[in-house]
């Protein structure tokens, strides 16, 4: 059993180890180790396109995660304890959004937005001299669709396990509904909200397929990586991958610590 676990971990980490190893290669080949050097890290960090793609990815991931978390939490709050047709419709929407393959979302968003822009842009341009086009906005909206639904599921799950007595007690003690929310409910659902935010951020940051269709003129980091793979890989890509991995790991650890602290506080 232990041996088996080791084998699975080896399977999981072998490719990652290979990527990291070749990132230190001094040669130009991404599949052969030729000496040791840090030059590819320097190149990646000095490459304005890598930095711009990274910034685009961070910006899109952050915006979509914030919006998805806020809107998703609002919806989850409204949906908790709700019955009837609206609830059913929303449950269905959430399920469909989670279930539809990213590739279909990407394609559907692309053709829908292009069609809408074709209709709207002549008017818009005549009136304001300004045109709608694919870009950060469409990326944020398409990523947020999926991640908002995840947030709804997470926060609603947490809300349903909340102790209703606490809220009632707070009301009995004369707290306003708003006061009750911020002082009683919010601290308790905070871990779920944070988890939702992190999931949303990671999903958006790592997504290739939706971005591939709706990014327009923007280049996110996965799109940059994909395009670089096609024009022949140098260890620069490995260096980027290794740095992103290290950063993710760092964020994961920070998030764990935060979550742990907030849980500990919630318990107190």
């Amino acid at each position: 059993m232990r041996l088996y676990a080791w084998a699975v971990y080896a399977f999981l980490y072998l490719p990652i180890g290979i990527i990291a190893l070749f990132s230190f290669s001094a040669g130009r080949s991404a599949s052969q180790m030729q000496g040791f050097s840090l030059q590819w890290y320097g190149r990646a960090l000095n490459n304005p396109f890598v930095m711009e793609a990274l910034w685009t990815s961070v910006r899109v991931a952050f915006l979509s995660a914030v919006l998805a978390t806020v809107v998703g939490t609002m919806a989850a709050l409204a949906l908790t304890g709700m019955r009837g047709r609206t609830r059913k419709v929303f449950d269905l929407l959430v399920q469909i959004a989670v279930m539809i393959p990213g590739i279909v979302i990407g394609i559907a968003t692309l053709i829908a937005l292009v069609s809408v822009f074709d209709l709207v842009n002549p008017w818009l341009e005549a009136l304001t001299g300004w045109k709608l086009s694919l870009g950060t906005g469409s990326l944020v909206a398409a990523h947020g669709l999926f991640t908002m639904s995840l947030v709804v599921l997470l926060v609603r799950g947490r809300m349903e396990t909340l102790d209703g007595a606490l809220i009632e007690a707070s009301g009995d003690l004369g707290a306003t509904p708003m006061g009750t929310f911020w002082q009683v409910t919010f601290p308790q659902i905070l871990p779920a909200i944070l988890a939702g935010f992190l999931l949303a951020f990671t999903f958006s940051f790592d997504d290739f397929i939706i971005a591939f269709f709706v990014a327009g003129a923007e280049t996110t980091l996965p799109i940059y990586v994909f395009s670089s793979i096609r024009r022949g890989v140098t260890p620069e890509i490995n260096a980027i991958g290794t740095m992103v991995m290290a950063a993710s790991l760092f964020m994961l650890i920070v998030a764990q610590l935060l979550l742990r602290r907030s849980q500990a506080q919630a318990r107190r």
Partner: protein
Amino acid sequence: MTQSRARALLLTPAALWYAAMLLLPLAVVLIFSFGERSAIGGYAPGFTFEQYANLPARFAAFRNTLTLAPVGTIAALLIAYPLAYFLAVKVSPKWKTMLLVLVIVPFWTSILIRSYAWIFLLGGKGIPALLETVGLDDVRLLNTPFAVLVGIVYGYLPLMVFPIYVALEKLDKRLLEAAADLGTPPWRAFLQITLPLSMPGVLTGSMLVFILLMGEFLIPAILGGGKVFFVGNALVDLFLQSRNWAFGSAVAVALVVIMLITVGIYTRLVKRFGASRDDVGLM
């Protein structure tokens, strides 16, 4: 402010988002699927069932997806279950969190870069070269369904481990002790107690992985060398190469319908085994 008005206000942003980014795009795909390809590519309005009639032209893509998605799901399950069991039952609490985190970490790296590493591992200078040293000559791995399967299992393993782990973690270990006290052999205890109780996790994980595999495009594109063709690849080609938006829309509609059916069956099963949807959400 009444409670129902507050609710309406809270729900409005989400409702608008769903309307603009989910319902509208799906409606456009549905409309386009009855249209035609314009002469230089793209979409031309029309009303025809021609695109749907042409679906059998992508039969092979649907067949590949509908075989490799379940096979990949089962392979991931078979590899993930023992690991999840090990983590939930055998590992001391001290190491548990760390080992669990180690399962997710690869998932936080770009799937593109991870899959790319497999090109090297499965290519002629990788594993086949190692096999050659032990006398197995001319083994070809890259650009085969096997390579795609490896990529799939590799890419989605964490998604399978987690729900199973959660289910097994909830398992009351006293049940197993009681069974042992009653003289039940371990394998029977496993079959009669552990396995049924972990079913919700198994079904949740399988559904997650299956859903993602049905829309997969990258792994076959990177590790299949253009020879292992999924519906996802067919869609990308239709929109990014042959620019047949109408037919592409019909293929997308067909994919979604197939998914609705299979996932519908799955959800039934999940309900039967008593797992709630929120387990899915928690992943």
